[in-house]
């Protein structure tokens, strides 16, 4: 790992070099009241005055809707057109939060668990991640409680930490190095000490290791009903979550042509587990809420050696009835 330094005034030229070298640069952009990731053409478009984007950066690798294949019927013949890896551009994800970068671990695990998902992996390979340490946080943030931090480098190819007049660049991977190499002359060694003073202080509110252990035995707890009582059963939390990866397969036939699509889905919906028979194994919102938390804090850790939550707080911000996950986890933590 190299720790380098770049002057504030030099960042735009480095950015331009990156933009010139890669097809797409994706960065947070302000639209009215919300900030969302979007393809940007100039450095000025990048938004910095926000705590968190509404949606996470996962859709760069796992789009809301993506085509698995298309087909065309010709009389009795059928011609199928498969996913073409060559169609995936090389891209740079700029100015993501460390909590988003950290979310790639559980996503990588899901898409490579038994079946290796070509579409996800191709995008993953062709995407470089330049994250930015958080200088500010709000009451929804709890990255430190789930093993991350406002200056955490996990998942990033480069982590930038802004100082008063420049940025500390922690170059973590070869991909990162090649991005630096585009403007090597702008970087200097950084030796001025700890970055911590430039990074937001996010208080730790529970011990995640204890929590994981405790939740393992909590399947039949009353807490799920109590916590989920006000849940309305929408999909907002799952759709804004950086690690939620449930999807649904849909057909889009148009006469003799058509395509098969993969679309986001959410375990919060009542229909998610509805069987054709009419039976629904998760028939109550309490069981669906339990699934959401158990999945993130019990099932994923058991199988994939990572947590299913990075403490970004998006679900809490998006929830129409203020289901605050940090608060709910803390209260589980406090159960004796």
């Amino acid at each position, binding site marked *: 790992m190299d720790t380098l330094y770049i002057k504030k005034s030099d960042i735009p030229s480095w950015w331009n070099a990156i933009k010139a070298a890669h097809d797409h640069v994706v960065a947070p952009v302000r639209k009215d009241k919300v900030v969302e990731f979007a393809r940007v053409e100039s450095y000025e478009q990048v938004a910095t005055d926000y705590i968190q984007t509404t949606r996470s950066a996962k859709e760069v690798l796992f789009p809301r809707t993506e085509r698995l294949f298309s087909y065309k019927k010709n009389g009795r013949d059928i011609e199928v057109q498969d996913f073409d890896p060559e169609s995936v551009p090389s891209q740079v994800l700029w100015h993501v939060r460390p909590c988003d970068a950290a979310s790639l671990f559980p996503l990588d695990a899901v898409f490579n668990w038994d079946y290796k998902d070509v579409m996800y992996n191709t995008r993953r390979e062709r995407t470089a991640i330049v994250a930015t340490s958080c200088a500010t946080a709000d009451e929804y943030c709890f990255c430190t409680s789930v093993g991350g931090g406002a200056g955490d480098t996990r998942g990033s190819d480069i982590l930038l930490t802004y100082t008063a007049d420049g940025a500390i660049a922690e170059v973590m991977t070869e991909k990162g190095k090649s991005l630096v190499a585009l403007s090597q002359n702008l970087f200097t060694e950084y030796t001025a000490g700890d970055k911590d003073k430039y990074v937001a202080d996010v208080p730790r509110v529970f011990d995640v290791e204890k929590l994981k252990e405790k939740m393992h035995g909590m399947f039949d707890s009353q807490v799920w009903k109590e916590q989920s009582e006000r849940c309305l059963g929408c999909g907002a939390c799952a759709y804004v979550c950086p690690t939620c990866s449930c999807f649904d397969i849909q057909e889009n036939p148009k006469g*003799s042509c058509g395509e098969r699509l993969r679309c986001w889905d959410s375990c919060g919906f009542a229909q998610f587990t509805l069987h054709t028979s009419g039976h629904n194994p998760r028939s109550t919102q309490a069981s669906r809420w339990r699934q959401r938390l158990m999945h993130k804090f019990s099932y994923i850790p058991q199988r994939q050696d990572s947590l299913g939550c990075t403490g970004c707080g998006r679900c809490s911000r998006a929830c129409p009835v203020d289901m605050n996950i940090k608060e709910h986890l803390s209260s589980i933590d406090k159960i004796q």
Partner: protein
Amino acid sequence: MSKIGVFVCHCGENIGGTVDCEKVAQEAAKIPGVEVSTDYKYMCSDPGQTIIKNAIKEKGLDGVVVAACSPRMHESTFRAACAEACLNPYMCEIANIREHCSWVHEKGEATTQKALDLVRMQVEKVKKDLPLSTIKVPVTKKALVIGGGIAGIQAALDIANAGHKVILVEKEPSIGGHMAQLSETFPTLDCSQCILTPRMVEVAQHPNITLYTYAEVEGLEGFIGNFTARIRLKARSVDLEKCTGCGMCTTKCPTKKVPSEFNALMGLRTAIYVPSPQSVPNKPTIDKEHCVYYKTGKCKLCEKVCPTGAITFDAPDEIITEEVGAVVVCTGFDVAPTSEFSEYGYGRYKDVITGLQFERLASASGPTMGEIRRPSDGTVPKKIVFIACAGSRDAAKGRPYCSKICCMYTAKHAMLYQHKVHDGESYVFYMDIRAGGKNYDEFVRRAIEEDGVNYIRGRVARVYERDGKLIVKGVDTLLGGEQVEIEADMVVLATAGVANKGAEDLAQKLHISYDKYNFFAEAHPKLKPVETNTAGIFLAGACQSPKDIPDTVAAASGAAVKVAALFSKDQLLREPVVAVVNRMPPPVFSTCVGCSLCVDICPYSAITMENIKDRAGNVIKTVASINPGLCQGCGTCVAFCRSKSIDLQGFSNEEMYSSVMAALHE
């Protein structure tokens, strides 16, 4: 994969001349799911139908599209052909490439392409078609006739003579209705009672007719072939079984001065009474409003004199239910409330009377034994004025319609008057003379020319009394609008015919519609004149609009034929194009959430809410349910249902959706 056959008809040159049928058949063969596609000169001909039938059998087709003329033309032909080849007839669809294509477009590529598109739309529809079977509704072969006037009598007799049971319900103590009150009838001047009473007796004696007089329909539930009627048998305080109709009670009754309804309030009757000597049943009823016993708790004279002990004081009303398959509504009409005619002094001057009252005066069974006498002093009027259109054709009184019978009965009244009072003078004020009908105009001419009735075309402005005379001020528009003033002894108003009091309530109980004058509405003014919008309920007579006797009797027989046709089979067969609310196994039961908004949208009241219960009888869910007997298949509820829990057989969501998609995608 479906196995669909496409059969393209040339219709000689009708289609073939504009559309390249061969090409349509070739291209249709490429549509996925099409097993066979062929064209032929005349698909509807015997050889053409044979091609279809053979293809169904040989290729095992599960759907057929015939591209030919309008489905309104030959859909039934081709569906029958499919049925013969053992394919469900509702798996056959028609692509209309004649009326909608070859006849309306020029020959060319675009027209052939359109024909192919129309075929594709039907192919995709057939793929979603489900086999349907004709709906069979059991029929209770018993009719309910409401109202025992001439319409009800005629309808009941016709249905009964066709071999079916009839329940006849009359709210008055006797059947007969208004016709029984009439003196003579136009245009033949037969005595009304002479022609009516035999029919009344026939009703009473007919083995197929059950007669309930002094009874009213309280409610009607169910649907065509399967109605349940609740009938209130009002307590008449006389046991009809025991009563012999000897009349002792009526002679002894101390209350003798009750105005007689039968005599249009011109004569008097007792409190225990028989409306008229010809009443059917000819047995008395106690009028509780006027009976001394009911008023004071004392008397019971009738009970004492009754030789058979038939008087049953204090018996309650009885409610019975009857299962019937059809209903004929014959509740008749009423005359306009006379309080409307203050300018004519009705109610203030005793000698201003209505036409119906005149009928009673002229009737041999009436209060004057058929002599025309003034109600005020009993003298014979020497000068009489008839005012036609009293309340009819009068938008200011809210009744712009013509009451139809008044011109004729006014002519009859004037004629009867002239026959009875030879030295009398009669005047008729009229707006127009509407005498359309067999021998009708001749009748009016006779009144004018032979009987010397003075017809004055004009309206009467005012009638007032002065020194015992009625001064009638009017205008003669044929004499240049000259004012006319007649000093009359009697004035007869041809009051408008109006809907019965309570007609609206009855319509609501029966779930039939009514117009703004509260006359019951027919299903179609020309082609369905005796049907209502509710299947199985029919109309006859003046409850629908003012009618004369011949029209009433014709309508009653018409309604009776409809009933007899309905009763001709044990089951009623209906097209399966009906809406259905989905049902599923537990725990879902149905996707319907029971919002009940569809109940109001149905024009046929076919939708009700049904409780789904568990074994213990607890309600698990309330969902909509559509009665296939009542549903006519418009599909308005289908498009309205938010959760798409209702679908229309034959025009289902999937079928319509696929057709639209096929119109836009190859």
